[in-house]
């Protein structure tokens, strides 16, 4: 049963500290998404990778957030320095979309990991 895994599941840190969250997408999937979920904002897309290349990170605060895919089995989301307002649940999701995107597709389904619950004090 293939699943997206995320580590750590919980992280409590102090303001100003660096936080790194990791995600292992489902083997064979070519897209990875990072979302942030809060009560106030709901699910917000932070970054999107296809075939390890960043395609859209417009939802991510550039000054403190960075997302990378060093290889096909690992995606990272880093916050430096962290702030209390970054407290949220961060989800990674993976999927398989056609290389030539556009038109009708039945392959937009995303599979979410369990999330990392981040608390910044």
């Amino acid at each position, binding site marked *: 049963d293939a699943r997206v895994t995320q580590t750590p599941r919980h992280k409590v840190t102090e303001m100003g500290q660096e936080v790194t969250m990791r995600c292992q997408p489902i083997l064979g999937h070519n897209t990875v998404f990072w979302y942030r979920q809060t009560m106030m904002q709901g699910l917000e897309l932070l970054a999107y990778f*296809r075939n390890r290349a960043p395609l859209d990170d417009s939802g991510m605060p550039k000054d403190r957030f960075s997302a990378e895919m060093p290889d096909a089995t690992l995606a990272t989301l880093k916050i430096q320095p962290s702030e209390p307002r970054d407290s949220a649940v961060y989800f990674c999701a993976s999927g398989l979309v056609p290389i030539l995107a556009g038109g*009708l597709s*039945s392959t937009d389904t995303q599979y979410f990991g369990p*999330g990392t619950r981040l608390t910044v004090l």
Partner: protein
Amino acid sequence: GQQVMQIPQYQHVQEGEDFTTYCNSSTTLSNIQWYKQRPGGHPVFLIQLVKSGEVKKQKRLTFQFGEAKKNSSLHITATQTTDVGTYFCAGPKLTGSARQLTFGSGTQLTVLP
């Protein structure tokens, strides 16, 4: 830009009552997906609708895609406590070469025993 609106935001029902959540998009969608997130859990894919006017059923859940492919609904018959959670609809958005999902704000369902 594309927006996906969902109503209601919250719904409390007595166990055994029916429940419906509605999703409306500002643009025509090539498909629409529904996800369920249990309290403390992560969104889990339920179903995808592709065709205009499509209706799909999963046990007590009925999903509909509007004729204009701009709206959708999820109806649960005779709710059970296991139905508790937040239901999200999501539609694909094509931005340049990036294909991503736009999620609705979700409907949080509470089922009272």
